[in-house]
């Protein structure tokens, strides 16, 4: 299996604070990797570096085998940001329009939306189970439904890698499990490589293939099965103190400190 992302000796600091300290991480093709860690552990910074939204300070990031500074094919990567569900809910756009906006780059400047693009939007909506909401305004949906729409927006341009930053913030507790199941299906059935930043370790560990524990350092990086066997130990190291793990659905995610 070739790697979709390869990170070597990555460091990053905001002024004096080191947020990423010698990170080495690979994401193989077809993997579903969950990055877990406490607030301020550098998870979002790592994602921003992978997405090219922050400039590399020290270290190397390869995307699809290519150095990030030379990487141009951003359509291969779909991104659902943490802020996706804090958008202006009064925005007058239908679900269809929002998902179609994910095709903007692919269609290209000065070119128009065509019938074939409409089919793509419908397929992406079906993949996240939202095809019946196509004509509804996005603000009228629940948090979980909105998040599915944002995933459809990322899926519509057929990415090989989908990056999600804490996607269950704002999703009702009872829907969190179904939400992760949908992601797991996308990974298993459509072969999309997934990179997920989350707090829901308890809920997620049986759905993902790989886990990475990050708190400035990388405390663990390996297969989910290995993580299962030693997770209490690894999680305690990552979070710096003992935590109680809740494997059932929990309103604020799966970890209670």
């Amino acid at each position, binding site marked *: 299996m070739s790697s979709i992302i390869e990170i070597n000796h990555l460091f990053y600091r905001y002024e004096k604070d080191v947020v990423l300290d010698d990170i080495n991480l690979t994401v193989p093709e077809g993997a579903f990797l969950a990055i877990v860690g406490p607030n301020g552990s550098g998870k979002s910074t790592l994602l921003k570096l992978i997405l090219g*939204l922050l400039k590399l300070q020290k270290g190397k990031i390869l995307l699809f085998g290519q150095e990030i500074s030379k990487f141009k094919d951003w*359509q291969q990567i779909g991104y659902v*940001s943490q802020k996706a569900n804090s958008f202006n809910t009064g925005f007058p756009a239908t679900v269809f329009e929002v998902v179609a*906006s994910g095709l*903007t780059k692919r269609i290209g400047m000065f070119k128009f939306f065509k019938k074939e693009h409409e089919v793509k939007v419908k397929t992406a909506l079906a993949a996240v189970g939202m095809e019946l909401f196509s004509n*509804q*305004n996005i603000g009228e949906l629940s948090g979980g439904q909105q998040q599915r729409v944002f995933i459809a927006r990322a899926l519509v341009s057929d990415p090989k890698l989908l990056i999600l930053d804490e996607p269950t913030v704002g999703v009702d507790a009872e829907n969190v499990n179904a939400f992760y199941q949908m992601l797991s299906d996308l990974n298993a059935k459509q072969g999309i490589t997934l990179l997920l930043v989350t707090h829901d370790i308890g809920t997620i560990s049986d759905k993902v293939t790989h886990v990475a524990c990050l708190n400035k350092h990388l405390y663990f990086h390996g297969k989910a099965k290995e993580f299962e066997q030693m997770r209490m130990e690894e999680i305690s190291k990552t979070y710096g103190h003992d935590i109680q793990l809740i494997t059932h659905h929990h309103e604020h995610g799966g970890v209670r400190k």
Partner: protein
Amino acid sequence: MIQAIFHYEFLQNAFLTGIMIGFLAPLLGVFIVVRRLSLIADALSHVTLAGIAASLLIEKQFTALAGLNPLYLGMVFSVGGSLFIEKLRNVYKHYQELAIPIILSSGIGLGVIFISLANGFNTDLFSYLFGSVTAVSRTDLAVIFIIGIFVVAAITLVYKELFILSFDEEHAKASGIPAKSIHFIFIVMVALVIAASMRIVGILLVSSLMTLPVAASIRIAKGFKQTILFSILFGEISVLGGLFSAYYLDLAPGGTIVMIAVLILILMIFYKKLMIKRHVQKEIQCNER
């Protein structure tokens, strides 16, 4: 009045300009409102005032330039102001709305200085402030027509990009949309339409034509395209209704246009409330069954 339109050139000019402005201002207004930049139009209109005052001053000082159309310098100031706003928004990244009062007060300040330097103007400044049915010339009409073609073409060509930038700027940037260039084109269009609208609506009221029809439309529209469509419809009703009533009642059209737009807004707010009430009643009835 329909007959009068065929008779009098000034009325033809006013109505044709009105139809174009009623279309252009709400079209751009939709993007402005959803990006929460409603006050940008106010800032730019005040900068336009400075441009017009400067032009009138030049006319007074140099009689050789007496034929200079104040619209041109108004546009130059407006576009210049829009670029300054962009610059300031980058300087004050965490206080982006600060750019608006800075530009607004600079515009007024500069305008007042020009007006004082000229010791008042012979030209009726009142018509620039509140609009006039008689002020639109054939040249104005031609200039506004060209601006209109430019704006419609640009919006059609970069509609997708403008939509994604308005909805989710971070996502747009992450997917490689040239956010800066598109924003630049957009703000220049706004500046031009504001300068073009002032003859009819007046400087002090031009922003309302960009925001009120949109505010009404957002209450009832499904989706973005429908929001644009309703905004333009409300914009046209306001401008044409306003011009008719201004002509008959001998009032400044800026006032009548804005009041009709406010009336539409109130109607839409009540309409929406009624719809929600009906919807709730239906649901209760369904549950009872």
